[in-house]
């Protein structure tokens, strides 16, 4: 499934492949340990080395947000909230895998609006929804 931002990070910030694999397996393990009995949208939090990880399960999809320094667990929980609500918005309901892939393009656009090269850009769901359609936000 799409690891859009992951890849984005790889290209932008030079996260080397082996590190990326390390991260991938680390997160998958983290998820496997904890997410199995998770309720929908229940937040999980962990820290590893100097980074924080906030993750959750949305329908069939697990979402991990990783940050460090000023992006601590609280900011990340904000981010993950925006992501989950945008994804739900795009899919109209908690996504199944199929639905998620169907809306892949749209979700990519949402994520593009939320984070840009590691910087938080937008946090408002309706604004993001409008922005992905190139409509100006309602509140100015």
């Amino acid at each position, binding site marked *: *499934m799409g*690891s859009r931002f992951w890849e984005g990070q790889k290209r932008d910030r030079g996260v080397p492949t082996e590190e990326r694999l390390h991260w991938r397996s680390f997160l998958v393990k983290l998820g496997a340990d904890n997410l199995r009995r998770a309720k929908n949208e229940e937040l999980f939090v962990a820290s590893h080395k100097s980074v924080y990880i906030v993750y959750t399960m949305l329908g069939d999809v697990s979402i991990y947000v990783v940050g460090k320094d000023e992006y601590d667990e609280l900011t990340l929980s904000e981010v993950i909230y925006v992501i989950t609500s945008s994804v739900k918005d795009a899919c109209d309901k908690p996504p199944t895998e199929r639905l998620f892939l169907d809306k892949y393009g749209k979700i990519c656009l949402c994520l593009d609006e939320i984070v840009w090269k590691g910087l*938080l850009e937008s946090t408002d769901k309706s604004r993001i929804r409008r922005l992905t359609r190139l409509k100006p936000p309602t509140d100015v």
Partner: protein
Amino acid sequence: MAQPFVKKDDDLDEEEEYSPFYGIEKGAVLQEARVFHDPQLDARRCSQVITKLLYLLNQGETFTKVEATEVFFAVTKLFQSKDTVLRRMVYLMIKDLSPSADEVIIVTSSLMKDMNSKTDMYRANAIRVLCRITDSTLLTQIERYLKQAIVDKNPVVASAALVSGVHLLQTNSEIVKRWSNEVQEAVQSRAALVQFHALALLHQIRQNDRLAVSKLVTSLTKGSVRSPLAQCLLIRYTSQVIRESSTNTQAGERPFFDYLESCLRHKSEMVVFEAARAITELSGVTSRELTPAITVLQLFLSSSKPVLRFAAIRTLNKIILSSMYGFNEQSRFAKKMVASTHPLAVTNCNIDMESLISDQNRSIATLAITTLLKTGNESSVDRLMKQITNFMSDIADEFKIVVVEAIRSLCLKFPLKYRSMMNFLSNILREEGGFDYKKAIVDSIVILIRDIPDAKEIGLFHLCEFIEDCEFTYLSTQILHFLGNEGPKTSDPSKYIRYIYNRVILENATVRASAVSTLAKFGAMVDSLKPRIFVLLRRCLFDSDDEVRDRATLYLNTLGTDASVGGTDEDVKDFLFGPLDVPLVNLETSLRNYEASDIPFDINLVPKEVKSQPLAEKKAPGKKAIGLGAPPSGPTTVVDAYEKLLSSISEFSSFGKLFKSCSPMELTEPETEYAVNVVKHIFDGHVVFQYNCTNTIPEQLLEKVTVFVDASEAEEFSEVLTKPLRSLPYDSPGQTFVAFEKPEGVPAIGKFSNLLKFVVKEVDPATGEADEEGVEDEYQLEDLEIVAADYMLKVGVSNFKNAWENMDPDNERIDEYGLGVKESLAETVSAVIDIVGMQPCEGTEVVPNNSRSHTCLLSGIFIGNVKVLVRVSFGIDGSKQVAMKLAVRSEDPEISEKIHEIVAEGKSSVKGKWRSGRWIGEMITRSKLVEQLREYQIRSQHKWGALAAFSPKPQMATRRGCLCGSYICFGICLAHTILLCSTLLQTLHDFSGSCIPWNSSSNMP
């Protein structure tokens, strides 16, 4: 800079039939991308194709240069379409393709057009894309528009421009810095996000200007900051300002504290937490300041949101941690206040924390446990241990390690409670677990045994039990070694023999060999056991492994009364228990070099110099502490190469054994015609300068290259020979040597000026042929010096405390120095290390930030093979006066004196290291000094304990025993030589993996 990675889980099987991307293939998608060229664009279909392309890219598929260019050009055609969804996709696609510089031109005009479009959203997106793909020339062209965009009334456009600014600041900081007026204006924006982004950018622009940051904070803390995110940023900047200002004005009300406190009442949790954390991290925070912050954190502890609970417990844990460090480490002096107040403040939260032990989130539970273990008092220990026992079974290994480490420090804090904790440790030792976890437990038990004498027997017993059923060879050998050192000193050594001999029967060869060594140690120490040990050792003579047999033979001979190899009893013990004083890496290289030759191996020829690891390597990010595999490499090969080089020159063969080769020192500026550096080789009665010369001019060939050395400022040296370099062609380095004689064994110092002399010949670059005729020429080089540190070999010791105590206290020389005003302790410490040229031990070369005193442990070998140990304590007072107490122990009292002379001379050293240095009495008043020294004494009493506990690599000698043993075997049976050598290499190989410090610390929560 933050790097939030966002990732979608992909462990679900994406190849299943229902995926819309099932069977997706790059070639096919690229074919489909032709629709972009249609004169009548089908926007919907184009969007779908772009989605597929994005999917491919995100799956890690790479496009070749041609493919990427093709797709990129095709995508640019889509700018014709007016469809908004498609346009949005196009922007994203261009960003993801990140076109090369020559392709960017194609889209620039389209994007520039969009940037000035009436549609706001076109503008915002165009800015983002342009900034992503732009370079500095293009940036100057669009700078005007970007400045406008920053103050655009549409917040999306403004934010896009601001965030672009943040990114561009890294590459084109000069340009972005010119925008600060506009950014300043944007900070006042009414839109929350614009304010957030503007604040971040403004701070980054001005971060090196303290005054500007301070002004920014002052104005904003008064005004209203809308977005919670911006508020958090502001709190961070505020605490930064407080940090920087408090170093200047020590007393009085803390500036901005009111602001931080008011943030504790903010409606957003994020802001409240940020403020609470900022307060707890203030340096020298008082209980009064801390209380409201702790109260807020306490409320968070019982929040329904896991994130808040985690954040709160993490912060509390950190408070405790900082005070714990204050308690144990050198900085105790500075943090005394903190240590006594903070745990009390946190203790109020104990009840809330106890309920978190059963938290579903394991990270939270572990943090709660470790915090409680640190705040807990003696009476609550037993209850806690009970709770932890229930909790241990269902957490992962990495968490368990954290808990084990916490228990270890708790036990050191309350030594009386050792019984319950030792029991706990032995219980968990019996349970399932990975290597790191078991290692942490064994490590803890070993430390407790060392530190709490009462716990010794019970601890050793637990370890014995453990090796009965231990699957890790490494741990078994370590424990056996430890047992060999500690066991014989117990009241009833005989009871351990059974456990040890069982290893000989049941285990693999490595463990068996260790067990044989351990048996021998018991035999050497306990006379009553000796006959029985002999019986056991004789049985080992029939072992299937030759290493085990060799060891048994060796020990039987060394310990045996009749056939004496070792000589006196003292020698035997020294041989069994003494450290191996050669660095293992060096030994390994020497053995590798030796393998082919047929003269007996001489361990005395192994170089003893340890080069410190380059700093970069230590800092290498992402390198895991558990990297058992990688053997240390590099530095010694250089020393070896020197040794080889020098021994190949017959003139130097009479100089004896090379004592030390210094690292190369440049004698020319970079990028000059001739590059020359010098390596100083120190022999007992000689010094050889090796000049490495490189000719960087292709049109020249140098011949008869020599260095004329003027030693008029080095009275004790007299030149004995010069070895010229016959020819020095372009770009192929060569060496010329100059040798000096000096009084034997005396650390003579001096200054030498150098002049490079040569015959230069013109070379035709086309043919590479040199002219017949040459011209004599010379070239001035920089001066070089022989300093006292050149006579000191950097040789570390594995356990400084032991080594120190084993040195004769009569040879100790102590003196006190006032060093005058210094910038920082760290700088002073490294200057002293440089002057004496010794190896810092146990990481004491690192001075913790802001610490007011520090003790550095140094070890080395002085010329004449004299071991030297130095304990040097520093203290700095408010006015930055530094005092130093230097205690030197060595095998020779004269050398101890000599070290003091070196340090004293260092103050007037030519390099001006002590520029402002003075003797006591001149700069510091006597009373001040006495006060500071008393402080050291108090500390050092505690410190030795701590040092012993945390001393790295204490138990290496199992292998060492093997090495020493094998070495002597060479003498006994030469026939085995070659065979053994290969065994040794293998053993060494194993070893290089295992010489990781015993107490590796894990960063896992």
